[in-house]
Structures are given as structure tokens and as C-alpha cells.
């Protein structure tokens, strides 16, 4: 009796196996969107003043305007902000002499007193032109980028329009 039951069970399982399709598979797409938790916005447009023939500067005393960039991170310890002052013109008349660039990147204000240590903890690269802030707190910092370009040999700049770019970006840590 026991053998008979075993036989029927074996035949039944074999039958089931024959009725089943040979392969069962499905490919399902899994999608997701990651929104950046860091935002970089130009708050104040900058422009050069021309206090003398061979200097272009963003200093307000020389009729220039220092640009201000707003960097907002909604996540703590997730991003670092990299800001640099320009070291060349992106567009200008043809220049025969070299241009000496100088500038500063600084935090003008912040949304929290917890960010008061950002300046001390920041690092500088690219001969001082690029400054990196580690955004260890959620909130907003307002960064100013002052710059000055002196034409070589104190010669007069050729007439025309001069454009330089201050770069700011949010990079994941």
C-alpha cells in the first residue's frame, strides 16, 4: 500500500511537471528620481568697475559690484560647495599682454550660527582661487566672490567688453 501511494505521488508530480511551462520569467523596470538637495543660485550679479586704464575690479569703491551666490543644502554632511574667482576672461578683446588676477571668496552671511565655522574649516586650492566649504549643516550660505584683473605692465586695456566667470558648484562629499 505504501509503495502504491508512492507510485501515484510520483506519477502525479511528473504530470504536473509536464503541464507547467518550461521557463517563467519577467523583466520589471525599477525607476527612481533623485532630486539634488543642494541648490546654487546667483543672488547678485557682479560687474567690473574700471578705476584706471589697466584695472578691472568688482570693488564697489571703484564702481564695481561683487557678485553673491546663494548655496542651499537641505541635507547636513552631504555636500561641499566649491567656489572660485575667475582667473581668465571668458570673452574679451584680443589681449597682447598677460593679465594678473586676484580675488577673494568669502561667506557674507549664513542662515544659522552653526555655520560660523565654515570659513575656518574651508580649504583652498588652485593657487588660492578655489575655496571649498564643507556643508556640515542644512541651511543656506551666501558667498561673495571679489576679483580684480590688472593688465600686464600697467598698460591700458583695449576698448571692448570683458566677461569673466566666477564658478560655484555643489559636489557630493
Amino acid at each position: 500500500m505504501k509503495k502504491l501511494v508512492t507510485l501515484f505521488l510520483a506519477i502525479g508530480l511528473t504530470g504536473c511537471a509536464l503541464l507547467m511551462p518550461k521557463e517563467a520569467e519577467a523583466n520589471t523596470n525599477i525607476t527612481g528620481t533623485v532630486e539634488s538637495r543642494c541648490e546654487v543660485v546667483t543672488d547678485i550679479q557682479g560687474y567690473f568697475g574700471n578705476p584706471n586704464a589697466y584695472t578691472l575690479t568688482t570693488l564697489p569703491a571703484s564702481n564695481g559690484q561683487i557678485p553673491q551666490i546663494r548655496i542651499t543644502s537641505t541635507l547636513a554632511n552631504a555636500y561641499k560647495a566649491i567656489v572660485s574667482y575667475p582667473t581668465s576672461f571668458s570673452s574679451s578683446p584680443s589681449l597682447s599682454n598677460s593679465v594678473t588676477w586676484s580675488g577673494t571668496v568669502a561667506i557674507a552671511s549664513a542662515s544659522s550660527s552653526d555655520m560660523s565655522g565654515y570659513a575656518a574649516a574651508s580649504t583652498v586650492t588652485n593657487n588660492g582661487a578655489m575655496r571649498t566649504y564643507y556643508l556640515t549643516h542644512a541651511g543656506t550660505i551666501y558667498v561673495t566672490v571679489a576679483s580684480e584683473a590688472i593688465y600686464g605692465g600697467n598698460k591700458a586695456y583695449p576698448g571692448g567688453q570683458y566677461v569673466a566667470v566666477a564658478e560655484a558648484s555643489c559636489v557630493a562629499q
Partner: protein
Amino acid sequence: MALWVLLLLPFCSFSYSYTFGYTGNAAQGGNSWGMTTPVLGVTVQEGLDISGVIYTYNPIKEVSDDFTVTVQNENAAGDGYIFQDTEDFSGKHPIRIRKVLQLPYVPIESFGQGSIATTGVGTLKDESVIYMYRFDACRNPQNDPSCPDYIPPLPPPIKIYDALDDDSVKLASKETDKELIDDDEDNKQSNEEEEDKDRLEKMLGIASNAFTLADGVTQSSLINTMNSVNMDTYYLARIPSKVYREPLVLKDQGISDNRKVLRSLSNDRLHQTMIEEQYK
């Protein structure tokens, strides 16, 4: 169906006439302020809702000092705060704070006194508190005549001035000398008493002698006769008019020259000639 939609459309449509904007710097006059029109620079009235606060300040302190700064607005009911935001600079480098606080739309009527409060050692510089607002002009339809439920205000009632009801006039026309009033009343009372006395004496006289009455009547009629003057003779008198004509007529008889005058004129000319010769 489309017809029903068209019919119901006027009842369903409602347009929000919101205006959005920013107030002026509420902390311009100090670190405590009221939510009033002169402070905020916008008209504070029903329909104005605050949706956020943008504040900045620059703390001046030493790193080692404890210092906290709180920006806040009391509840108008006096039982707490609409918002409170504190920055603790204790043991930290001072950094200029610029912050945006989002609020649910809160009616301006709910806002009480605003302030920037500090504790510890330090000061603030360049404080600025700006409110973001939304204004619904038609929440109170009387704000704007273009609002749907606007009711034109009734003209103010005209008050008719009655000088007799004027307390000042009454006071001015009231007799103020108490002694004079008392004297007047005393005189009036004594006159009445004298008249009563005379009348009583006369009545007693009439009773004793009936001729007194007749005499009185006769005298009365005599006085009436004397007083009755017929004025008609004066009013109806006619004065005849008369024309006065000019009786004198003057005729032109000619006027001869005065020879004495001519002689005098020749003397004058001679005199003038003599005078002029001096200057030649």
C-alpha cells in the same frame, strides 16, 4: 449639460485679488516695534496676511563669549509668540545671519509686538526684519468699491444746530447774580401783596359808598375819551401840488473888453522884457 454649466458658472466663479509684497525694515527704528502702518510701510488693515519673515543682523562678539539672539513676534492676544527664532553664538565665531522664515498665512491682526532680543555679551549691527505679505483687498469688501459685496456708505446724518439746546448758550444766558434774582423775587412778591391790599381796600370802599364805583366809571370814560384821538384827519389830509415856473429871462447884451486889464498886461510884458535882458 453645457447649459447647466453655463448657468452655474456665475455662482461658482470667485476671483482672488491677492497682492504680494514685502514690508519695509521693521527694525529700522530699534529692536522693538509695533506692527503699524508707519513702521511696516504698508497699510495695516483687514486682509493683510503675513507669510514669512526675512531677517538679517551682524553679531559683534568675542568667540569665547556667550551670546544668543532671538527674533520674535508676540501674539496679539498676549498669550505667546507667533514665531520665535533663536541663534546661539556661544563659543562660536560671529557670522552675519540672513534667514528666511516661512509662516502659514497669518492675519496681521494676530501679530503683536515684534522684537530682537539678546542675551549674554555682544551687540548687533545692521539689523533688518522684513515681512512677506499677501493682501486680499476684498476680504473686507468695504476696502475697495470694486469688491463684489461692497456697500456704498450712507451719507453721514446732518445734525441740526439748535442754539436753544446749546449748553453754552444756556449757560451764557442764565442769570448768575444770585442777589439780583432774590431781589427780583422779593420785589415781585411785595408788589403782589400791595395790589392785594389795594384791591381789598377798594372792595371795602365800594361796599361803604356806591358812588365810588360811579365815580370810577365816570373817570374811566373820561380817560377813554381823552385817549381816543381820531388819526384819520392826519392820514386823509390832501396837500395840493403847485408848479413853480422860472420867471426870470436873461438876454445877451454883449460884454466889452476891460481896458484896465489890457494896460496891466502891457506893463507885465515890459517887466518880463526887462528881466530877460539881464541874462543876455
